[in-house]
Each structure stands twice: as structure tokens, then as C-alpha cells.
């Protein structure tokens, strides 16, 4: 369904490339990769539902690679799309796709077309929306408001936005405060030494140091803190002659054992 290689068309695209780069020196004018693809697709001047995906993919890839040659910073979204299109292109170019893979690749091309058509529809809807006779532009409300009667509507005025923004502020302040609390959750070396002193007696044989870490460490930062403080504590206890340390090779687990153990 997708015809690779309408030669004159591709030449046309190459010809256009320079102009396009001049037009969009960077990608900031686009609302994401689909938006960029859509803009490229519009240049083909065909019904989007029948747009040929292969030349479009090539155009996008050329565009991105030219932008890279110019050392423009390209957001990850665009690169991800480029990778995906490169894959799609390679599949579309396979001389004889195996039967079951064929359908999948057609689905992918159709899916891309659908995304383009849908976004195009929404962009047009946005234009129609903004050109409606809007209040304050082509329709007007009463200019001289009269205070007449407000019976059950609140005397005090507050909108949803006010409420949410207010709560946002409250929470922001709370979060700032909680940070200090969470910082104290980190393990001190003294605590770790205390734990090890208590636990080491119940471990008769060599045991990996990590087994001595508290079980309820959910956050990675807590875990790292506990590992560090337990390591330092084990060095201190070994120095004081309370336990023995063993490591078989660089970067391998650290074992500890009570000095009383056999």
C-alpha cells in the first residue's frame, strides 16, 4: 500500500530541504515530532489519509540529520521518532516481507497516518474555535454592571482556580518543611554501629554486610545512606576489634563476622 520511491517526488523533497531548513532553523516552531511530521506532510499536498509514509519518513530523517549537522539541539522526543521512523522505513523497504510481519507493518503505517490526521483535525478545530464570535471580541457583555440581587449565590466570591492555587501554595510550603524531616531519616554512622553491635552476635558465620541493613528501606536514597553508614560503621568496629571484615576481590560483596565466632 505504501509505494516506495516515486523518484520525481523524492527529488522534489531534496530540493525543498534547503528551503525548509531555512524556514525552521530550529525545532522550536513545532509542537513535537508529530507536529513536525504533519508540517512536512502538508507539503505533499495530498489527502493525509493516503499520504505515502516512506517519503515522509525519509523527509523527517533528512530534516533531523540536517539539523544535527548544524549542531542544533534536538529534544529526545524528536530522536525517538526518528529511530522509530528509521525502523519503519527499513521494514517498508524489505523486498519481500514475511506474510505475518506484513500486516503489522501496514498497521504501523496506518497508525502513523491516523495520528497525523487526528492532530491535523484538532489543529483545525483550534482555529475554528478561536475564530468563533468570542465574548469581548465580537460579542459583548453588559458594560455597566448593576448590583441587584444575589440571594443564594455567595456574598463571598471565590473560584475553583483560587481554591486550587491556594492549596498549591499551602502544600508547597509544607513540602519545603518536610524536607528537613526527611533529611533526618538518613542513617548516621552511630546508629549503624549500634545496629551492628546488636546484630553481629546472632550471626555465627561470614555474612554479607548488606544483610544487616534495615528491611524497610523503600527509597533508593535511604538505601544508599544506610549502605554507606553501615560500611563506615563496620570499619570502625573492625578497628576496635569487635568484628572481622573480608572481601574476596575488588567490588565484590563485603562480609563481616563477629570476632568471637570461630
Amino acid at each position: 500500500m505504501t509505494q516506495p520511491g516515486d523518484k520525481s517526488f523524492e527529488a522534489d523533497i531534496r530540493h525543498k530541504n534547503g528551503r525548509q531548513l531555512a524556514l525552521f532553523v530550529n525545532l522550536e516552531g513545532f509542537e513535537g515530532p508529530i507536529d513536525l511530521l504533519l508540517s512536512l506532510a502538508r507539503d505533499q499536498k495530498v489527502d493525509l489519509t493516503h499520504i505515502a509514509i516512506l517519503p515522509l519518513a525519509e523527509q523527517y530523517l533528512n530534516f533531523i540529520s540536517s539539523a544535527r549537522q548544524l549542531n542544533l539541539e534536538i529534544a529526545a522526543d524528536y530522536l525517538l521518532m526518528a529511530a522509530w521512523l528509521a525502523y519503519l522505513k527499513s521494514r517498508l523497504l524489505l523486498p519481500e516481507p514475511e506474510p505475518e510481519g506484513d500486516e503489522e507493518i501496514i498497521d504501523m503505517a496506518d497508525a502513523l497516518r491516523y495520528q497525523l490526521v487526528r492532530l491535523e483535525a484538532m489543529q483545525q478545530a483550534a482555529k475554528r474555535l478561536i475564530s468563533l464570535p468570542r465574548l469581548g471580541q465580537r460579542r459583548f457583555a453588559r458594560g455597566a454592571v448593576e448590583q441587584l440581587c444575589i440571594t443564594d449565590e455567595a456574598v463571598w466570591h471565590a473560584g475553583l482556580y483560587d481554591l486550587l492555587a491556594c492549596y498549591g501554595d499551602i502544600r508547597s510550603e509544607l513540602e519545603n518543611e518536610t524536607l528537613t524531616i526527611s533529611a533526618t531519616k538518613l542513617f548516621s554512622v552511630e546508629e549503624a554501629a549500634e545496629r551492628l553491635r546488636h546484630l553481629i552476635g546472632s550471626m555465627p558465620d561470614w555474612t554479607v554486610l548488606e544483610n544487616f541493613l534495615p528491611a524497610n528501606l523503600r527509597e533508593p536514597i535511604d538505601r544508599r545512606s544506610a549502605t554507606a553508614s553501615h560500611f563506615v560503621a563496620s570499619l570502625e568496629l573492625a578497628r576496635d576489634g569487635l568484628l572481622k571484615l573480608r572481601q574476596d576481590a575488588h567490588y565484590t560483596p563485603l562480609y563481616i563476622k563477629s570476632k568471637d565466632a570461630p
Partner: protein
Amino acid sequence: MTEKTVLMGYAATVEAIIFASDKPVRERELRHHIPDEQDMVPIIEVIQQRFDASCGIELRQVGDGWAFRTRVEVAEQLNQHKQVERPLSRAALEVLAIIAYHQPITRAEIEEIRGISLSKGTMDILLELTWIKPRGRRRTPGRPLTWGTSPAFLDHFGLDDITDLPGLDELKSAGLLRKGQMLGALMDTPPTNQDYDADEQGDDLLDEKPMEEAMFEAGLSVNSDEEGADA
């Protein structure tokens, strides 16, 4: 087009201009919108005919300009209820937001979150607006009264359900958590909508006359000689 139709067309324009203006419109200004040879008087007559005595509004000459005003008879009848709209105080808005997100919540807990004690008037205003209501008592020593939002609150803020309030993550992504945004990744605060389920089903814990006590706590005087104050 008949002369009448043309006249009606000018009248429509003049009507709209006066309607949209925030102060009386001078005849000189109105003249910009109609041809020089057109007399103003018949246009005003057309409008006054539409806004005749049966209408709630009239076209009136105010100083050297024209304005629409509510007819005195209608206004008098309506002004019996006249109230002036004022923005809710910051304190009241804060308390309301905290109650909305943390309900059922006790007065002490509200004070704890705000780090400041509640002044009498604040709960008072919210109660008067019928935006908050007692939600039963906590099963803790002292059995403190808890507060929650009312259906009137949902109605005023255009919400179908209290769970429609955006959670913390959603506030953050909407750009409404202005400070402390960088902490998001570290903190991982639980979503607030869990809070609603967490507490005991507030409403069935209500004692007999919660409203009275509630109003008392909120600093409102209550006539305690009859039992009419049941919620």
C-alpha cells in the same frame, strides 16, 4: 430596504453600543455609527418602544449620555436582597482548601497545617456560606468534631464530586505547586484522594446535636432553648 428597516438597523447598533459600554454613551459618540443625515430622535424612540414600561430595563438619559438602567420599580423589589460580593479572605480560602483536601479534619489539625491558630470569624464565614459542615467526631480522646465540605461547596465550585479535586501530582503538573517543585522526585507524597477513604465514614459518627456544637465551636451564638438546630 424600507425606511423602517434601516431605522431598526441603526437602533440595533445603538442598543448594542450602549449595552456594552461601562458608562453612559454620549450622543456625539453614537453619531459616529450612523449617517450624518440620520436624525437621532427616531432611533432613540425605536429603542424606547422596545424597552417600554412592561420591560425590566429602561433607556435613560444620564447626564449628556444614554444608558440602560434597571427600572426603579423592579430594582426596589430586588434590592431587598441586595448584597455586595467581596472576595473571600486569604485565611478563609486557606482553611476551606485544607478542609476540602483533608476532610474530615478537626480544628486542631487545620491549625497544625497552617501553623497558626484559627480566628473566630474564619470558620464562621465558611459555615455561613454553607460550604462546610460538621462530619462527626474523631474516635480519639476528647472526641473532637471534624469538618468537611457540603454539597453547596461542590455546587459553587462546579465540581460533581469531591474526588474531582486535582491531587498533588495533578496540581503540580498544572503548575499550581509553585514552590518546592524540585522536591517532587525526592518526596513522592501520597495522592490526596486516598485521604478521603482513610478516615472513618465521618457521617455516621454524628452525635445527636452536632450542628449546635459545631456552631458553638465556630464561635456562633446558638439559641439552645429548642432543638430546632438539628442538622
